[in-house]
């Protein structure tokens, strides 16, 4: 049986843990607000972009741009995996790497393909290293921190160049979609070749007015599309980074909330045990005294 002192030590330990988890919970909550703000700020841009791209794509032929053309023989697949840099966020990273792993297994089962990775976040990088996967690029300190559009543009530019050079036949991105503070879903999306454009707009923002007359485009629609398509890839990457960042904070907030609750439960149990032990000690002492007094009387 645990002695009084043991229980007391345990209680103070759990209390300290609780303080930490509670603080982390609050930090995650405030970061989550910030990340959600970034997402909200990006939404008008993404919505407008999808709108313009959709209207433009209608005018130019499907095969107008090499970024749109699917490759017939897909041998080299590239996956952009976004994870967090830090742990203590529940199953967040496992969900993402599992999604990538499942994809990897599917593809390798189908046939002989090379799969390489671009990794955002330390957890994904460590996972890929441990599995001995081919790593083309890694970006640490992006997810969960502050980053701007240029990081998406730079990494996107690299992917596009390699895609056009034939180094990659298909490029996918794995990210965690932020559904709500309580729900984040790992999602896999095709980046390149760019899927048919109307698919690109899963932002179901309704425009109040239906599209007006045909646009005059300057330079030609095809050239304009050539400008916009790479940018649409950047937009996808940037939005994936934002979603993953936001999800990370939400996941950590939930995980830390659970941990704090678990601490509370444990404290309750321990306090009960402590009180019981104390009471038992007092009772034993009383018995002694009473026993002693009785003996003297005898």
């Amino acid at each position, binding site marked *: 049986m645990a002695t009084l002192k043991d229980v007391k030590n345990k209680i103070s330990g759990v209390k300290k843990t609780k303080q930490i988890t509670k603080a982390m919970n609050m930090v995650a909550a405030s970061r989550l607000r910030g990340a959600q703000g970034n997402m909200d700020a990006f939404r008008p*841009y993404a919505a407008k972009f999808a709108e313009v791209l959709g209207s433009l794509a209608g005018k130019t032929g499907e095969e107008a741009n090499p970024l749109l053309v699917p490759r017939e023989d897909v041998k080299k697949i590239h996956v952009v995996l976004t994870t967090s840099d830090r742990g203590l966020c529940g199953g967040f990273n496992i969900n993402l790497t599992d999604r990538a792993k499942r994809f990897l297994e599917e593809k390798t089962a189908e046939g002989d393909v090379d799969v390489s990775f671009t990794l955002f976040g330390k957890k994904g990088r460590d996972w890929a290293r441990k599995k001995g996967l081919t790593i083309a690029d890694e970006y640490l300190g992006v997810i969960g921190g502050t980053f701007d559009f240029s990081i998406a543009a730079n990494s996107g530019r690299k992917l596009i160049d390699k895609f056009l050079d034939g180094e990659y036949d298909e490029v996918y991105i794995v990210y965690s979609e932020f559904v709500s503070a309580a729900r984040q879903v790992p999602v896999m999306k095709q980046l390149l070749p760019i899927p048919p454009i109307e698919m690109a707009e899963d932002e179901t923002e309704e425009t109040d007015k239906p599209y007006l*007359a045909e*646009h005059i485009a300057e330079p030609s629609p095809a050239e304009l599309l050539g400008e916009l398509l790479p940018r649409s890839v950047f*937009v996808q990457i940037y939005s994936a980074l934002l979603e993953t960042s936001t999800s990370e904070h939400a996941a950590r907030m939930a995980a830390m909330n659970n941990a704090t609750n678990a601490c509370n439960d444990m404290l309750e149990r321990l306090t009960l045990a402590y009180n019981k032990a104390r009471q038992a000690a007092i009772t034993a002492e009383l018995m002694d005294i009473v026993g002693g007094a009785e003996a003297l009387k005898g």
Partner: protein
Amino acid sequence: MAANIRLEVVTPEKYVVSEDAQIVVAPGTLGEFGVLSGHTPFLSTLKTGTIRYKDVNNVERCVFIGGGFAEALPDKVTVLAESAERRCDIDIERAKSALKRAQKRLEEARSKEDIEFARARAALERALERVKLAGSGSRGS
């Protein structure tokens, strides 16, 4: 007087401008163009430069943009830019030091690959435009 046209300048990070203007002049890749209310739908890429517009009080305002594209509709101009700042928001010290850096990089990159050169050049253009614009006057934005 002609009706006003709504100008919206959006970057991935935030809304930079959202207000009514009498006229908007933007730097298209094929040349600068002006947009008034009632413009036919029009789409153009933009180069690094300055968007100038007259607000409802007839004050001319300037916004730096680092490339992007613009969509004009009869009642609205939307500019999607990768970076954009109002004139009053430009950090002149930062822009100047960026200018120096870009010039230096340009010198170094001249011998290297074309891509490096193009990148350094783009950085130079952005910095130059910011410095120019910030120095061009101090009233309003």
